[in-house]
């Protein structure tokens, strides 16, 4: 691979280098995607700017109920972090599903988002957490909702020749909220999922009705896909398997999966998707102490 490589020490340092190489640089964190893309000619850069040695990008912080994950935090670090395990269990689980340990030890959550692959496990969980992406650029800093970070399959709205992700933030889950991450896979390592679904549910204080629900499905579109209609149908709905089943069918109608020779046809994916959504929403609701969900094991597991 013939290109320059620069290890930056501050965020300002990255921006200055980007300015010095207009349109010709790219940010590298773990590099597990971009190195292959460059090797295969899918991406081009004269200069790679490594951001992993910038101290503030390596932090996971919790402040006033908001979690902030620096852009150089790896999947392995997030998975093991007590802050993440305590406040966003589904994210720890999703991080653990990515690649292999060797990949997770290097690959970052920010990279998982910027690579813009639709089935990226950590990005799917982050979308269910309604995460925001903090970006530094030539004109200062901005924050965008995670769904706005996607322009198409493999196409990020973040231009790493002039911008860099500095952190990913989201609200910590509280005791009235539960979460789940479910992955349909052919093998448990080094394989993209056939489908993955993440859900976060908040119950009203009585434990019998949903306050709100977030449902995210992939790969069924460009980037993680929120099932907004299904979410709306569950607002203030009773926490019952019937309500969850109806919402799961609705969610599948919001999905537009492609056929994959390796990971299932469109028809197959549409058939199993409601089952996964049902399981994810039920498992998330079951996590809330005092939930009123009557455990219909057969219905949940089928």
């Amino acid at each position: 691979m013939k290109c320059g490589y620069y290890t930056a020490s501050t965020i300002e340092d990255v921006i200055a280098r980007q300015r010095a190489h207009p349109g010709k640089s790219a940010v590298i964190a773990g590099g597990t995607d971009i190195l292959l893309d460059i090797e295969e000619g899918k991406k081009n850069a004269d200069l790679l700017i490594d951001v992993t040695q910038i101290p503030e990008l390596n932090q996971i912080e919790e402040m006033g109920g908001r979690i902030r994950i620096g852009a150089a935090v790896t999947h392995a670090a997030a998975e093991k972090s007590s802050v993440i395990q305590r406040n966003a269990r589904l994210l720890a689980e999703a991080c653990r599903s990515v690649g292999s340990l060797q990949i997770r030890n290097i690959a970052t959550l920010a990279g998982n988002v910027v690579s813009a692959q639709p089935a990226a496990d950590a990005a799917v969980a982050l979308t269910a957490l309604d995460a925001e992406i903090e970006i530094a650029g030539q004109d200062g800093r901005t924050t965008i909702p995670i769904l706005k970070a996607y322009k198409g399959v493999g196409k990020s709205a973040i231009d790493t020749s002039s911008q860099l992700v500095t952190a990913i933030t989201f609200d910590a889950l509280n005791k009235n909220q539960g979460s789940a991450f479910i992955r349909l896979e052919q093998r448990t390592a080094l394989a993209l999922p056939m489908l993955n679904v993440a859900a976060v549910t908040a119950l009203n204080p009585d434990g019998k009705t949903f306050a709100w629900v977030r449902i995210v499905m992939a790969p069924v579109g460009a980037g993680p896909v929120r099932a907004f209609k299904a979410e709306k149908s569950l607002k203030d709905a009773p926490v019952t398997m019937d309500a969850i089943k109806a919402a799961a069918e609705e969610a599948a109608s919001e999905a537009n999966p492609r056929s994959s020779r390796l990971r299932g046809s469109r028809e197959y994916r549409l058939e199993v998707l409601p089952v996964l959504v049902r399981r994810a929403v039920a498992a998330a609701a079951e996590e809330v102490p005092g939930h009123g969900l009557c455990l219909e094991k057969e219905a949940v597991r089928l």
Partner: protein
Amino acid sequence: MITIHFILNGQPVNVEVMATDMLLDVLRGTLHLTGTKKGCGKGECGACTVIMNGRAVNSCMVPVAKADGARIDTIDGLGDPDHLHPLQEAFIEAGAVQCGFCTPGMIMAAKALLDEYPDPSDDEIKEAIAGNYCRCTGYTKIIKAIHIAARMSNGKGGV
């Protein structure tokens, strides 16, 4: 070309490289340490596994600039023909080696695991070596070998 400095198997090394050379190619081509194997070259087979700052990584996916100032351990630094490392002894005892191509990566993945968890469960072992392909053994004997090595270390905290 730039000069990179790192600690390789306990010894300081300085090496002239292109920053975007992969660590694997520098180890094998420049430093002539051919114990680490090149399999797929894209992070899928684990044959090139080395330990960087205590963590197992695919050296085929690490630009050598990332190794600057790091501690790198490779299979070449483990034991010698007269004094095998416990993992090497255990792999022989359990018959965990057939063609042998995956063995260096497998042993380094196992070493990173045992350094952190001296007495791992089956599931912990499977997770640690899930990124290492072996097309010969069926993995059963490899898992057994890692348990044997853990016992040899006698809970002394790593092998």
